[in-house]
């Protein structure tokens, strides 16, 4: 019995309630002041816009390794270029970008295509369930994972908006992965499966051992091209053979893993709700080092050449040496960080629950710039074509660009 979304919106989640009442005598025929707060936002199925050439961020993390690393610099200070109202809230993932068009899925269950240069909507399509993860871009097609829908992995044609294929997988609340000509998706039922990109045919599936309340997967899988690595609600980090889906190894964290795993070189990095960052040998599953941040880690990490950076729910960023987990620097934020930061050139960008977007010097951890937004930032900033895009919790897609110098 799924809840049915409506068009109700309040300006703030703590706004006083306004009661619309109706008389009981006679025919009820009116609306009250509450109606002033309602907004209409129906989305028709439209063709998506025409892509242009440019930088790409085709899946969560920017690539199969989920490194959240962009080499094209976006140098602070930044200014807002545009802001787009997506109509409803966002899951914990971010946008994807391809050829000058930005794609964002919403929790109402639609996908918006937005021109990266202007912020104008170029198309939208609706799905049967919320889109939690980052849309996966595959050439002329786009793949989204859905929760609470009959068919949870859906591939649509980018030109027409028409469905190419869809698969019943179980609820997906993570970001699908494209690697080695396959699509990898993980479900709340504890299944990791590989699908053919052309027809959506299941190639292999790995099923976690049933364990009530602990066998779901919310963590987005990552891959180095040989193995698929995924964290589980039960606190395991599991590596599967990309070709066969067979388990290569399993490592155990002390708490659940909701955050996407990331891969850098020969190491897997997993952030756990137990507060630890785990560095694991991708070949053997051996834990090389751990670092206790002291707070649950809901978001993942950004992985640079020498360091990884993670934000904690207690507030602040910590940058660790990839090799031994030693602290390189710490940076303060005003509130908890619920998403992975992004390393963009020489800066680390991250948002916090106190509505700030920060630019941190990646070498020193010094705060270089910050901007107060209208609502919380719970997703990873994405950089493409010199723009920086963040999703704010009040359903805004906000695009920044470098301030004129």
């Amino acid at each position, binding site marked *: *019995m*799924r*809840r049915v*979304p*409506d068009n*109700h*919106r*309040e300006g*703030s*989640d*703590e706004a*006083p*309630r*306004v*009661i*619309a*009442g*109706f*008389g009981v*005598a*006679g*025919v*009820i*025929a*009116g*609306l*009250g*002041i*509450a109606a002033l707060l309602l907004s209409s936002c129906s989305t028709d199925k439209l063709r998506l816009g025409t892509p242009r050439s440019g930088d790409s961020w085709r899946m969560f993390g920017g690539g199969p390794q989920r490194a959240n690393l962009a080499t094209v610099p976006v140098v602070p200070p930044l200014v807002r270029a545009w802001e787009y109202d997506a109509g*409803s*809230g*966002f899951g914990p993932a971010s946008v994807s970008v391809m050829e000058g068009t930005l794609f964002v899925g919403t*929790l*109402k269950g639609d996908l918006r295509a937005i021109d990266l240069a202007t912020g104008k909507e170029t198309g939208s399509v609706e799905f049967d369930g*919320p889109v939690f993860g980052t849309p996966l871009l595959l050439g002329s097609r786009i793949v989204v994972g859905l*929760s*609470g829908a009959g068919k949870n992995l859906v591939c649509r044609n980018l030109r027409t908006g028409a469905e190419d294929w869809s698969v019943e997988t179980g609820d997906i609340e993570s970001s699908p992965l494209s690697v080695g000509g396959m699509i990898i998706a993980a479900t*709340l039922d504890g299944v990791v499966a590989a699908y053919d990109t052309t027809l959506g045919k299941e190639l292999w599936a790995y099923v976690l051992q049933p364990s*009530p*309340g*602990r*066998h779901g997967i919310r963590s987005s899988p990552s891959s180095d091209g040989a193995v698929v690595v995924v964290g589980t*609600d039960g*606190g395991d980090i599991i590596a599967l053979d990309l070709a066969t889906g067979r388990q290569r190894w399993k490592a155990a964290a002390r*708490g*659940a893993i*909701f955050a996407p795993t990331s891969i850098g070189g020969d190491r897997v990095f997993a952030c756990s*709700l137990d507060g630890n960052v785990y560095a694991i040998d991708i070949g053997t599953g051996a834990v090389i080092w751990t670092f206790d941040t002291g*707070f*649950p880690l*809901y978001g993942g990490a950004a992985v640079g050449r020498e360091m990884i950076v993670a934000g904690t*729910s*207690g507030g602040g960023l910590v940058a660790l040496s990839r090799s031994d987990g030693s602290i390189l620097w710490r940076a303060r934020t005003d*509130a*908890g960080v*619920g998403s992975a930061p992004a390393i963009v050139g020489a800066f680390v960008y991250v948002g916090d*629950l106190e*509505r700030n977007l920060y630019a941190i010097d990646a070498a020193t951890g010094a705060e270089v710039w910050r901007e107060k937004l209208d609502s*919380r930032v719970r997703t990873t900033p994405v950089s493409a074509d010199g723009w920086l895009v963040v999703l704010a*919790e009040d359903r805004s897609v906000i695009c920044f660009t470098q301030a004129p110098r």
Partner: protein
Amino acid sequence: MSRIVICLSAVLLLPTAAAAQFFYFGRNKVQYTAFDWHVLKTEHFDIYYYSEMADLAGRGAALAEESYAVLATKFNHNVANRIPLVFYSSHLHFQQTNITPGFIPEGVGGFFEFMKGRVVIPFNGSMWDFRHVIRHELVHVFTHSKINRVLTDHRIAPDQLPPLWFIEGLAEYWSIDWDVQADMILRDAVVSGYLVPLASMDAIYGSYLMYKEGQAVLEFIGATYGEEKILLMMENFWKSERFEDVFAATTGRAYDEFDREWTYALRKKYYPLLSASDLPGSVTAPLTSEGFNSKPVYHERDGKKEIYFIGNRSGYTGIFRVPSDAPGPDAPEAELVVQGEKFEEFEAFHLFQSKIDVSANGRLAFVTKSGENDALHVYDLGADEMQATYHFAGIVVIGTVSWSPDGSRLAFSAIDKSGTSDLYAWDAAAESLERLTNDAYDDRDPAWSPDGRTIVFSSDRTPTGNVGSYNLFVLDVPSGEVRYLTRGTESYAAPSWSPQGDAILFTSDIGGVRNVWMLKMNGDRPYGPMRRLTSLTTAAFDPAWADGKMVYAAFEDFSFQLRRGGDIRTLYDTASVSRIPAPGSADTLWRQPSIAGVDELTDLRYEKEFSLDVAYSEIVTDPVFGTYGGAYLSLSDLLGNEQYYFLIYNTAQSSEDLVSSFNVAISRVSLERRTNYAYGIYRFTGRRYDLTDPAEYFYEKVFGGYLTMSYPLSTFRRFSMRMSISSSEKDVTEGLLITTPVETIDLSRRALFLSNSLSYTHDNSLWGPSGPLDGSRYSLTLAYTTDVRSSNANYYSVIADYRRYFRIAQRSAFAMRFWLFYNDGTESRRFFMGGSWDLRGYPRWSIRGKKLWLISQELRFPLMDRLGLGFPFGTISLRGFRGALFFDAGGAWDDEYRETLGALGAGLRLNLGGAIILRYDIGKRIENDFNDFQRGLFYQFFFGWDF
């Protein structure tokens, strides 16, 4: 707040004055204290406090910010808006708040009001409790914000919350560790067999048991499936309107599956305790069996050995006594000594807070709320009369009292207006009050030693006091020196000296269960180990010496009853569990950090800023009155002291009538001071009918203003007055007179009414599920209305209403009511009656007259407490079936008395969730001037409380 709001509603919605006749009872929420409000602004909070408690507000601010940081991490969320946090330095002050209009019972530790997101919390002397309540209420704030966020993100109207067991269970789970008290409740529930499974949690909706079971459920989920599952339940709240589905989607368990796991785990945990401990009822004799009972004290009077205690067996809390040596397995009959909660002097007893004491010469000292603050009373048991009542300037709440051995002084713990809880000694003869301790620590339960030199008390002035530990301390009265008597990280409370002064009984939760312990004393020094005298599965409280035997209050079967244990010395000699007390100097203390206002910008005087409470609008099409529409809204300041009400609607039936058909009312209500008042102006126009004669329709245009004031003498009594002046133009509506005899029609007239009324109202009634069961209610109103313009109307009114309730048994009562309503003069209004609320068996409001009398008598008794109806989708519980046998008689007339009417019969009442009472009556009318019974029976179905 008195009844002004209700009166105002009557003014706004029912201009016909006689309609207010049903709304004038109710107790008063008295604003005794004039608070000087300030605002302390911290990073996330606006903290409202009054000047006397500035230090406490700073400490509370630190606790609030500490909790905010913890909860932001647990919820992975923050609260976007600043949180208004209103502190009171005592529960008695908290009970005066206008942020909620209702009465606040003693057991309410704070509340979160979600309309404006206000959190209101009193201090009770304990910083640990303060921390707990602040965090508990902030969990509510975060939960509300988080759920709203989740639903809004999914574009679902944020108008739902998880079930109350989850809301309150979570607030406990994330505000305090599983503690001795929580474990006591669950142990008892499991071992005594009243644990309610999750699937049936509705059966204990809103109860403290539900809080603790909810906490236990979430503890189990956290331990078994991971604490993140609790967060996920909120994240998944969008998935279904049925929380059971959300629960299953998150944990992988349906309620019944979960219940099997959870209850089995609890049984495995608690059943083994029975091998090493006992339920109180299995090892001790009962001294009480009804209601809740606590704070026993022993006294011999005229050779009779008696236990005096505080109990609420009748619904009113008072002091009772029972023989301490009563034989037999059943509890002896308790005798009422001091009737509480019916009169101003003893407005409220603190059932679990204030121990009583009896001096050697038979003077009973006890504490009640009496007016603004607590008062200390002395009652002469020999003469069976009150001897003295003492009010102390600056002292708000009084806790435990203890006589000095010579009966000349009384030691007590008390909280002053700053919130500081200290010990005092009162010398009645010298009229001298001495403050024995003066610090930020919570000093409780003083017990004066038989040699008069020392006072033993319980306090959190111990290194682990900041996490809820209380130890026993010795205060040397002459020097004021304080030393440790016990030293531990547990909680020690309720010390009681042996009559010889060589030992102390007290309770401690050493080992996780609160039991009675004893420590031998050599003067003011401990002698030998302390030993555990009881080994209970549940808990013991307030031990007392009773002629060598032990008496204490025990928790069992979700009730507090007095139990009589064995010989104390024998129990000590045979005790197997002991501990060395480790006395010493009280030099290692703790201090609660404080956030103080750093400058004038962060610490401000409170200024009223008004914000929206309710906005309501409607367009209604009615077959009689046509189409009309309008809006109603109300504003109030953050503390709820000042309120504005605006009503505007239009009854125009054509465009030409638009301007002339506006109806407007504006009112201001002030609840800030003891005298509440409201005033406003209004203009009403349109077609209407008179409730006293609904067959008559007319057009009326009326405008005017009113002023109403209410002065509460106490919780139970008040004077109120109302003045109004209104210009009325009345015209008969054409086409609606077909059924109305011409001679009864009010002809068109214009008048300028000046109306004044004065009322005296008393209400100390005690309510059951369907209506009052004890006490009395009465009201007398005198009113005079005159047309000062043209003397078209000129009449006076007398309204007398008397209701009395005689308790027959615990839940049965005989109720009687007498009405005399009298209007006389030109154009005096008619009263009306008939129907389920007054003269039963007759059509509603069918009996009308300018004079009216009524007598009702009713026997009220319980039929069924709970009926569960099972459906495929779950069980619906109906609670509170009550029965009634009734007899009514009355009559109404204008100029000449017409006839006496009556009815008798039986009725059934069903309480639907505490707000709506369904009523079904069967009976016979007594007709023909009380000469004939009705042929057949009448059947009436309606709603509403019993009179």
